[in-house]
């Protein structure tokens, strides 16, 4: 019953958050120096042409009215027209959302596939060689910038070994997955460093917990204690850690899509900023903000499902 209410009412509580984000996005974009119309027309733009286009996109109106147009367009769902591409932003986003979603999902999946076994290995051999190696590697992973790591992976796997494409995005599904391996790996290496360290620490705590001792007293082997009691209990905090990192993850896709020339939302955002394409920047930023809020909402529900003590 409580949970049902949460699922129903929590989105309403998020409404003020989204309004705040829309104001912040709007204000930030306007505060970037430069004028979209001048950037669009270049040096050959006559004052008349500039004025015409400003009027066409409503840029000559007062700021508060521009904000209301923005909100109106958001509520309408189509988010207005891009100044540069001259098409509705919804269409623009629809074309580019798939690579970004695939990149995020692939990175999370890959980082879990790396972090769970590595943390298990380290926690169960605490103080041993494996533990030291895992900690060394994960600490280095924390320190490496994503763009540099991406370039290194391209040099190694694409140029020297010729295993994966250097950049871009494929046509067929298999081809796309092939293109996504290196970018996903780049993000996953950094993300799994954080996950591994946290998972290792919670596994060690759970291995020494009273309830693990009680499970041993029931005659469970170390492997059974680990699988049945230690692992489920230490995965619960990882759900929240992933949710907290979703903002960072989206930030990373922006960089990684540029490094690997993936035609996703991140790349669209970067280009729109350079072109001062106000409405596109606002639209994509709002989508990223909504995604972050939604992911945290889902994580709250997932935590409650995994841990019966959690009250929503």
């Amino acid at each position, binding site marked *: 019953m409580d949970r049902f209410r949460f699922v129903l009412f929590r989105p309403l509580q998020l409404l003020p958050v989204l309004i705040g984000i829309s104001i912040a996005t709007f204000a930030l974009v306007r505060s970037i120096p430069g004028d979209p119309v001048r950037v669009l027309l270049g040096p050959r733009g006559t004052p008349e042409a500039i004025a015409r286009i400003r009027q066409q996109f409503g840029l000559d109106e007062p700021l508060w009215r521009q904000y209301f147009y923005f909100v109106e367009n958001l509520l309408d769902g189509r988010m207005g027209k891009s100044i540069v591409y001259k098409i509705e932003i919804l269409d623009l986003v629809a074309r580019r959302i798939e690579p970004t979603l695939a990149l995020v999902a692939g990175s999370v999946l890959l980082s879990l596939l790396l972090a769970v076994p590595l943390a298990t290995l380290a926690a169960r051999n605490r103080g041993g060689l494996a533990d030291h190696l895992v900690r060394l590697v994960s600490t280095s992973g924390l320190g490496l910038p994503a763009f540099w790591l991406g370039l290194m992976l391209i040099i190694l796997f694409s140029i020297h070994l010729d295993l994966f494409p250097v950049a871009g995005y494929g046509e067929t599904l298999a081809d796309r997955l092939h293109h996504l391996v290196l970018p996903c790996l780049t993000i996953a290496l950094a993300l799994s460093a954080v996950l591994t360290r946290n998972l290792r620490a919670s596994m060690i705590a759970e291995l020494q917990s009273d309830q693990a*001792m009680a499970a041993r007293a029931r*005659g469970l082997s170390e492997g059974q204690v680990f699988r049945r009691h230690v692992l489920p209990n230490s995965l619960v905090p990882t759900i929240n850690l992933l949710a907290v990192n979703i903002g960072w993850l989206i930030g990373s896709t922006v960089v990684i899509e540029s490094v690997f020339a993936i035609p996703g939302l991140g790349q669209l955002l970067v280009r729109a900023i350079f072109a001062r394409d106000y409405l596109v920047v606002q639209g994509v930023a709002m989508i990223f903000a909504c995604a972050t809020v939604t992911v945290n909402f889902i994580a709250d529900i997932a935590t409650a499902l995994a841990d019966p003590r959690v009250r929503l």
Partner: protein
Amino acid sequence: MSAPLLSVRDLRVSAGPLDLVDGISFDLGQGEILGLVGESGSGKTMACRALMRLLPSRQVAVTGGRILLGDDDLAALPEADMRRLRGHALGMVFQNPASHLDPVMRIGDQIAEGLRLHRGLDRKAAWAAAIDLLAQVGIPDPARRARNYPHEFSGGMRQRAMIAVALSCDPGILIADEPTTALDVTVQAQILRLLLALREARGLAIVLISHDLGVIAQTCDRIAVMYAGRIVEQGAKTDILRRPLHPYTQGLIRCQPGEDGGGPGLPLPTIAGQPPSAGEMPAGCRFHPRCPRASETCRREMPAPHALEGRIVACHHPLTGEVP
């Protein structure tokens, strides 16, 4: 008396050079309840962890003695064989039921876990057995309660559930480490009554560890008093409580409210001084710095446990005959 179910001889538990349990011996008969009493740090918890071979870290180990259960010496058994006996021959109940149950697993599944492991029962049969066990430990509406998680149980119900977990595979021996310390007094009495009832119904032998002589007095047949890693006195409960032979036992009894110590309005007597820590054991009798009867012999020679008036005492100057 028939042959004891469990015989402990000269059991020694050490952390590196330090002896936490220093050569203790006791027997446990079928259906008998043995109380292990002592202050915190006297080694009683380490002794019972050693019986299960579940010592808290790799640094702490059984370094001597034998733990005889049937034909097996638990002190020398390979880990794989020991694991088969845990839960199956020896069950254990812990002090804090809240932290010793898995918070994200249903109570019924935790009880069923041992049954599936030791008895090879399938999911359905193990679940039915778990519900039956919950009923046996006095949980009302067990079929519904089995689906609950530990946080949905009260403290006393959690301890009942933990007893059900420990008894799931019908062990002959239950080791109960301070099973009522974390509970309030009324619930405490209920749990002790449950242990007595289970002893009657199953012929269960129980090692009950407690610092509380009141708890021991209500339940046990025999008592072993531990001080600084050694048993200083053991024998029948009534003998020991009525007329202790060891000065430490006498001191413990006097510290109990309502015993023969200071009456209403008077401060409770205490035993002066602190128990020694494992690294700084005094020479001779370990109790001598706090003992009103200590002599030169006590300072030099460790008293050996010897039979006296139907019990075993380790003291140079036991409280025999004369009135102290």
